[in-house]
């Protein structure tokens, strides 16, 4: 199993551009999550999904959108990039009866 994979690893965006961060898991997990990590702030939940077709907002959803058309994929969309979205983004997943979340390697995003 590859676990949770994320692409790209690093990206520079200009203000106002859009992009999609990709996340895929091959563990057949129901739950998937997107977090952002800022220095000294820990991880903040952006969006989560409890299964294909079901998504909901987390603590910091503004400026982001998600979709979950399959169990495996959970892309995160930034429509109008802003400098405040400069961060490291982590995707995670967990199984239905498992409390532990498994994390991807992260995507480092710089908005200039």
């Amino acid at each position, binding site marked *: 199993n590859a676990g949770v994979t994320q692409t790209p690893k690093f990206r520079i965006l200009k203000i106002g551009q859009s992009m999609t961060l990709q996340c895929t898991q091959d563990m057949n997990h129901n739950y998937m999550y997107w977090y952002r990590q800022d220095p*000294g702030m*820990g*991880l903040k*939940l952006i969006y*989560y999904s409890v299964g294909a077709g079901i998504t*909901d907002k987390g603590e910091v959803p503004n400026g982001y959108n998600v979709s979950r058309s399959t169990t495996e994929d959970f892309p995160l969309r930034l429509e109008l990039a802003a400098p405040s979205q400069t961060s490291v983004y*982590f995707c995670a997943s967990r199984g239905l009866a498992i*409390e532990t*979340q498994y994390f991807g*390697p992260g995507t480092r995003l710089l908005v200039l």
Partner: protein
Amino acid sequence: AQSVAQPEDQVNVAEGNPLTVKCTYSVSGNPYLFWYVQYPNRGLQFLLKYITGDNLVKGSYGFEAEFNKSQTSFHLKKPSALVSDSALYFCAVRDISPAGANNLFFGTGTRLTVIP
């Protein structure tokens, strides 16, 4: 609301000495507690968790954590630190809201440096 606090931003310890990384929590109901480690330029890796049972929980890489209900603490410990243990450590608690989502609420992290 659920919350978790890591009172130390930085912990330094000499190689071979015991280490402790502190975590306190505030939850409604029974706590589900976790420790994760993050090495440079890597994602978070699960170390251990407390759901129920023995207060002393053993995890990966020789780490353990002690759940103390009266002090609402879940400190991470290791008897003998290695230089390779140098990393960023996060304590987390399962969030109860919204019900069924089982999201994690993370502390701000503690950077552990083991000095050779």
